[in-house]
């Protein structure tokens, strides 16, 4: 394993652009473990990945926290899973999670750290962190653009396994 490498994003749109180049690099069978705190911008990155996989723009890519998995048609099928609300490995198996690892599509998993053994070793890990700074002032313009108030994010990438490492290199090259 190499050390994680990173790139900063100043806006939701920039995060989506980074996601889009990641999406263009993905091949069938790729697994992306996407971690980051609440509100870090994980779903936003996945919206970009969908764009990079040519998912039609009119298809809304929404958070799969409650639905557990969202599937989108694209250049490759995009499967967007979320372990946040999953209570056990048994529940994951019961929901048919293994079917998502059939190698036919691309799998992106949010909150992968909750069930690390559910994912193959060969994968790309992407971590999004909010960079420390003061949040929006309380009492500020409430109805203004939310994206405009967002603090910057740092996206770190780490590949494990042969394909994971190659993908990490390709993604970082496209991001810089």
């Amino acid at each position: 394993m190499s050390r994680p490498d990173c790139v900063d994003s100043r806006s939701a749109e920039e995060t989506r652009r980074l996601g889009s180049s990641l999406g263009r690099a993905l091949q069938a069978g790729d697994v992306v473990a996407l971690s980051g705190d609440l509100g870090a911008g994980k779903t936003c990155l996945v919206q970009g990945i969908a764009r990079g996989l040519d998912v039609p723009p009119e298809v809304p890519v929404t958070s799969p926290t409650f639905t557990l998995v969202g599937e989108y048609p694209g250049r490759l099928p995009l499967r967007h899973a979320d372990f946040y609300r999953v209570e056990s490995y048994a529940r994951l198996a019961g929901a048919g999670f293994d079917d998502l690892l059939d190698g036919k599509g691309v799998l992106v998993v949010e909150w992968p750290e909750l069930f690390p053994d559910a994912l193959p070793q060969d994968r790309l890990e992407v971590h999004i962190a909010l960079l420390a700074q003061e949040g929006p002032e309380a009492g500020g313009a409430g109805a203004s653009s939310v994206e405009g108030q967002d603090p910057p994010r740092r996206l770190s990438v780490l590949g494990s396994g042969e394909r994971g490492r190659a993908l990490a290199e390709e993604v970082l090259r496209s991001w810089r």
Partner: protein
Amino acid sequence: MSLILGIESSCDDLAAALVRDGTQVLASVVQNQDDVHAPFGGVVPELASRDHVRHVYGTVERCLREAGVSMDAVDGIGVTGGPGLIGSLLVGLCFAKALSYQTGKPLLGVHHIEGHLASARLGDEPLDLPYVGFVVSGGHTALYHVETLSRIELLGQTRDDAAGEAFDKIAKRMGLPYPGGREIDLLAREGRGDAFDFPRPMLRQGFEFSFSGLKTAVALEVARQEREHGTPLPRAVQADVAASFQEAAIDVLFDKARRALAATGQRRLAVVGGLAANSRLRERMAGLPPPVEVRFPPVALCTDNAAMIAAVADRMLADGQTASLDLEAFSRVPLPSTLAER
């Protein structure tokens, strides 16, 4: 007189229900799949795999027993065809097909969201059609124009997070117990709704929603309050955050619902889905000026259940929209769907 058996397994619960005439719930059983494993002392991966069909049998049997009817009395079998998790959907679907084949009762494939929209028609005073249907839950936030139960038009939906998800995630961020949506509801009663001015995302733009930015703004505020007060936050601060967040989210839901009524010319509003159990949302929506009539399903029928599936199936049976035994599960089909034509 018609009697429909409904079966729902689109996500992580198995449910069965018996509904008479599309409105009267004789029995509604919801079985969490985790409960299924409890007798075996917890996680048994072999049991958790695809043979959940056994558990459907037990759930349906219990439902028939509670209602005190036999399969002979049932006129049709309604089952969720999607959208949902294929692995979970197949459990209910395969069982419903087998039961239909064995008993000769017609099979009806129901769209899960159509079920939620129909839940306003369950109970002693079913909401008359047409109406604006507002699905607010952990997985969905969408407005529909329900002209009839077979003519449903999507007005707009969330672009990122569902409203209920924001409630649950913010509760978890503050360390509140699960389920977080109810905790926010309770805690907010002690707080000031104007303590923090959180964003009201997309308040003026069409019928689309976005709760991701609001969730982030609240998470940032919680982090800032924790720097000042420590973790966990004092209850008074938690209550102010909960109340201010809830007001912001409900302001958006209220505004969109009001404008959907105006745009469609409808006077009836059905608020359905898990978040429809929220007391402040009920209070605000009930405050829509007459002649608007607002209806919420009973709390037990707000979350995923099979009675709502049976309600739709009842209408489909009357319309002759029966499915063949090669009905397939689907993971993601928007409404209006072509499910009935399959």
